């Protein structure tokens, strides 16, 4: 069997977690492709490699559906940052983070950082609604005017859609206030047994974003990348200091020894 080729080895892993329909895939799309486009419910998980300066950061977009919930801890294993995403118009989406998703992060690195992100801010916040992503080509703007696509293509959805279908421009009732997110962040630290004073402050780690308009999206990802940089550098150092000789090539060759076809 041929050696499986590895892609560029990622230096660090960032994972997006959150209930279905909060917009994890859209956030990632907005950041990587600078567009807001139709997404379908993510199956299993998806993966994006971001070249950030000299570093490769892998961003894992996980599936929010209950069905794939079991995969979460595996995706979180070794993560340097976890983005816990909720929908500002849906109180339950925040509650789910605490009930279902927080425990998935047990497998993440010990020094993993956590961001709490309220997406769909455009639906409640006029600032976010009027925000113009300066990096967007004009034609994409028109696309944004279209109705928000509701990613509920699969009829086998175990939970009802997180937010009711809404026309662009109508301001929905905001169910989750920033203070709620901050309080949740405090509870994350407590869950992790971290001291609030020595951890990153809540105001730095709680964001409200809009994948639709791009509001705060770059800010979120770039702030996180800056914060995981020490983690990257440490990992690179460790690799350099490792006394192990990489015998990948030799072992690859010895693979077939037992099955040499000289019969």
């Amino acid at each position, binding site marked *: *069997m*041929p050696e*499986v080729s590895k892609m560029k080895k990622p230096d660090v892993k960032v994972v997006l977690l959150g209930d279905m329909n909060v917009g994890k895939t859209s956030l990632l799309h907005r950041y990587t492709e600078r567009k807001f486009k139709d997404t379908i419910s993510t199956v299993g998980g998806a993966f994006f490699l971001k070249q950030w300066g000299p570093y490769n950061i892998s961003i894992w977009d996980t599936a929010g559906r209950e*069905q794939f919930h079991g*995969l979460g801890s*595996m995706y979180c294993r*070794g993560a340097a940052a976890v983005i816990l995403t909720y929908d500002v118009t849906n109180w339950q989406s925040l509650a789910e983070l605490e009930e279902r998703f927080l425990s998935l992060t047990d497998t993440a690195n010990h020094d993993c950082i956590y961001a709490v992100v309220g997406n769909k801010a455009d639906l409640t916040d006029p600032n976010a609604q009027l925000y113009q992503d300066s990096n967007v080509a004009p034609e994409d703007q028109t696309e944004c005017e279209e109705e928000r696509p509701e990613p509920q293509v699969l009829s086998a959805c175990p939970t009802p859609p997180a937010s009711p279908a809404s026309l662009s421009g109508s301001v929905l009732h905001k169910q989750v206030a920033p203070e709620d997110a901050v309080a949740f962040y405090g509870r994350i630290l407590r869950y992790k047994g971290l001291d609030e004073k020595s951890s990153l402050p809540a105001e730095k780690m709680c964001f409200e974003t809009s994948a639709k308009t791009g509001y705060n999206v770059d800010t979120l990802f770039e702030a996180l990348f800056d914060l995981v940089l020490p983690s990257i550098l440490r990992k690179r150092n460790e690799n350099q200091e490792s006394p192990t000789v990489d015998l990948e090539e030799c072992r690859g060759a010895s693979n077939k*020894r037992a*099955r*040499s076809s000289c019969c």
Partner: protein
Amino acid sequence: MSVKAFELVPAVERDLLMGDKARINIECIECCGKHLYMGTNDCFIHHFLLDEVTSSKGKLSYSVQKLLHKYLGLKKPVAELRAASALERLIVLCDGIVFLVDMVTLETVPSAAGGGAKIRGVTAFCINENPVNGDPFCVEMGVLSSKRRTVQIYMVYEDRVQLVKEVTTPEQPCAVSLDGYFLCLALATQYMILNYNTGASQDLFPYNSEERRPIVKRIGREEFLLAGPGGLGMFANAEGVSQRAPVNWSESVIGAAVCFPYVVALDESFITIHSMLDQQLKQTLSFRDGHILQDFEGKVILASTKAVYVLVPLPLERQIQDLLASHRVEEALILTEGAQRNIPKDKFQILHKRILQQAGFIQFGQLQFQEAKEHFRKGQLDVRELISLYPLLLPASSSFTRCHPPLHEFADLNHLAQGDQEKVLRCKKFLISYLGEVRSTEVANGCREDVDTALLKLYAEQDHDSLLDLLASDNACLLADSVPWLEKYQKYFALGLLYHYNGQDSAALQLWIRVVDGELQDSTRSDLYEYIVDFLYSCSNLDLVWKYADWALQKNPTIGVHIFTKRPASKDQSQLNPDDVITYLGKHSQALLLYLEHLVLERRTQKEKFHTHLAVLYLERVLSLMSKKPTDEEQLTRARERLQALLRESNLYRVQFLLGKMENCEELLLERATLHGKLEEHDKALHILVHKLRDFPSAEAFCTWASCSQDSAYRQQLFHLLLGVYLDGNQTATGGGAGDLEMAAVDLLNRHGEVFDAVRVLRMLPEGWSLQLLRPFLGRAIRASMHACRTSQIALGLSHSENLQLLHDRLKERKKPIFVSEKKGCHLCHNTFSEPDVVSLPGGVPVHTHCVAQRVRDSPTKRQLTNSSNHT
């Protein structure tokens, strides 16, 4: 969306296996090189020889030869078969028992004396393809037993199996895979990784083994493929981390394998093929009653209950070409780059480049120029491939032929654009920008001429501004090819530049002259004539200068003469000899004048010949203007001013010669006066000025001018001479004229009083003149003499004080006071002193003043006096 990545080729047909026995089913298969083993539900092992046959059309098929079949005697289906080729053994699982069978004879291997060759109560086993133990004559095997929650590790030898390790698991395991020390297990409710050496375990993710058959498939070093919830194909490595995104299978998947870069999976009715590179479903093959999917040394073999098939991958290149053919550029590139590891490096580079180039052309055809450019750049496209799409752009002499097989499907640009002129234009603009970017890079190495010539043609055709920049800078445009093209688009100026760049200045000039003369039309430069003149004055080829100067001078002498005047001074042969130029300019009087002015006035050439020549030309012009009727006073004045200025300022021309020329000319008196002045014949000059011209200011100005470089005595003399002329004239003249001269004399005195010697003047003046008349002069004279007197007094006083100061200083230097008293005697006469005035001799000896005077008078030298003037 589909790619044809694999082809399903039948290997063992049903009748070969079981003939007409309907109830026989295939239970398991094993393939080892050409040997195919098959276990059936009636407890038989069949042995086939599988040969690949490639038909003349390149179609692959298999010829199968049945070697042997053997009944195992257990009446149960053969559950699993694994070959250990180094041991020449087949490991068989049948009826919960693992035992060994000879690969060739299919006979069961009897137990050796030391240990058993059978393991009982086995549900599943796996072979470690990447064992830590390096012994080539044993095989490591992981065994799941039906009763205990354990995994046992056995070493399999030729005639025995040996238990080496046993690890317990939290639940009953139902599937296993092994790599190094790592066991990847499917338990009842979850998958996990277990290190049998350290006992460390890592949970992967939960699933339900009752709902679905688990799949645990080693796909590479420390990496496994697992069937996850929702029909996902999940990747996990030994650390329990997923490094690839999952692929989305159907819920009922039976078997899976990796055939890089694809994940192949089998369900009840289809074979699905996903790419590991982008997780997309690439191909679906219908396959009924699928039962087994396994890969053996890279060969994927499938079996239904009755027949065996091989899933043959199509050559990667063909897959990529298929993708490109359907314009799926991104996928083709991902596939190419993903396959990097499977292809030798040099071969990969060639393939990758070619794919990039093809991708670039596809995008070019879709007018996605930005992307196309990027791919051309990365693929190091021979830029001529692109140029050759544009008809006629490559030079006729170019040796280029398009690459074969072709990189694209276009015959040329017209074919690509299908007559859409706007498209053609956009393509041309793209090529302009692309060539502009690459021409100075290594991309253009070896075909610089083709690139520059193509660029020139495009610029000319598109009327692009950069045409001139291209030609004015370093370029490799081919002359022969460019000439007709530039002529076609009437870019004659540009063509001239090209001639010039190729050292054919003469051709360039001829062409430009035709444009200036209106024979050819090219509006590139409205100031082409001036350009030609500039070109000629900087031209180092003197023959050309001589040849075309005539044309330029005829066109416009004033500008044309710049050919000679603006020529930068240099010391090489291209320097023109001024004498030659003057001779040459003989017929162009105006230009000649300008040239001489340039030599004399600007370059300040100190040569009598030029100065005289210029003066004569000035004079001739004045004379000719004077002779014209009616006279243009303004012009005449200007001409005379020039002449006068030259006559005044130059000292080099031949004065007598010029004087001779204007001897009879009564109108040029001022000039004649100047000439006399040059000859120092000041009386003659003044005579002319005063008596003939009666131009008293000029006379004064003459005196000032003639004496300007002389001392004041000379000046005084000159002014006295003028005064004399005035006064003499006053005596000889009569009437009003006399009064004029008198006034002139008075004015002269009053104005230039300081020059005159007042005493001499007073003696000269007639008695009868009133004081009032001369008041300014006299006043100034008196004041001046007073001033002189007082100034000298001040100077005297200052000298005195300076002298005293010096004496004081000197005394201070000596420090010692000299005492004089009535009791002391003079050393010379020995009398006492009666008054304070004494003279001190060297050594501070006081003596009487008169004694010293006496002594000095007597001494042969007066040296002592100078030293002894110290008074107290």
